[in-house]
């Protein structure tokens, strides 16, 4: 049996069959929730933002130009929905601490993280990611977790490809700086 594509279900919805949207929701619910969660950092808000994104996608389905991949088009909706949810709730809290690490110190932080057990590493990474701005968490998620190319991230975040590269570089550095700070704090607590 040939698997039906997104284009097939979209055409069905546009023919007036709203039930054909269910397979699309089923297919993209994890992606939508995961990206929303990275931005909102709150399960309840993430669930709401992901649901709203699906509704917005449904409403504007007739404006979807088949040329671009549905995934990219939908990710853009999820990103803007979650970002506006955070902005409207004024929930953006970003650490103002800047450590300005040298390349050697970043490497040290990376090695320290690499030597940790998987569970401990996840915990520390989670803490460090909480200190990033919502758009920074989103860019890391899209690039490292969803493995999206820079060009697609540029479309989703409404940036140029070179801006995405710069932002990725800065965010990566900032994440390691946060990790370095967290590791130093926990070391000083131990000794």
């Amino acid at each position: 049996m040939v698997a039906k594509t997104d284009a097939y279900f979209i055409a069905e919805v546009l023919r007036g069959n709203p039930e054909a949207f269910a397979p699309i929701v089923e297919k993209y619910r994890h992606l939508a929730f995961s990206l929303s969660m990275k931005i909102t950092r709150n399960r309840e808000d993430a669930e709401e933002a992901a649901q709203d994104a699906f509704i917005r996608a449904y409403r504007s389905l007739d404006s979807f130009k088949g040329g671009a991949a549905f995934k990219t088009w939908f990710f853009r909706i999820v990103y803007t929905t979650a970002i506006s949810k955070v902005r409207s709730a004024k929930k953006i809290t970003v650490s103002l601490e800047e450590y300005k690490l040298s390349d050697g110190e970043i490497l040290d932080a990376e090695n320290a993280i690499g030597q940790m057990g998987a569970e401990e590493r996840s915990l520390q990474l989670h803490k460090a990611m909480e200190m990033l701005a919502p758009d920074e968490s989103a860019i890391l998620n899209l690039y490292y977790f969803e493995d999206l190319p820079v060009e697609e991230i540029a479309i989703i975040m409404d940036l140029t490809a070179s801006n995405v590269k710069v932002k990725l570089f800065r965010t990566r550095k900032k994440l390691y700086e946060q990790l370095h700070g967290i590791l130093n704090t926990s070391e000083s607590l131990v000794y």
Partner: protein
Amino acid sequence: MTTKDNLRTFLKELPIEAPSQDFTRLVMERIRLEAVKSPVVYTPLISTRGWLKIISGSIIILVVMLLLYEFFPVKESSGVVLSLSSADFSFLLKPFEVLSKFLSGLSFTYVAVAVSVCLLLVVDQLYGRLAKI
């Protein structure tokens, strides 16, 4: 492995956040409500009314060109292939004799464009009014 690769490996180890079990059901409930309120239906870029405008506009332009051709005979060197010398439009031109004298000093292209634009505006207004009825 580079820092980028390491970070990818580390981030992929993070536990995956899953939406609630009834996520799809909740979304579909809202979609059904949406479908009743405002169904999403494909609307073509050019509507039927739009096509009618285009067709009637094209016919008007063609008729204007044919009529004006009689006012402004085109020189052989102008590259016009269509020969209308055998057609007799004189019966159509009688009411336009005054206009003919006025237009005789102007070029065929300018007059054709001006008249076509005016007629298209009239057609657009006409369809606009019909749409309101």
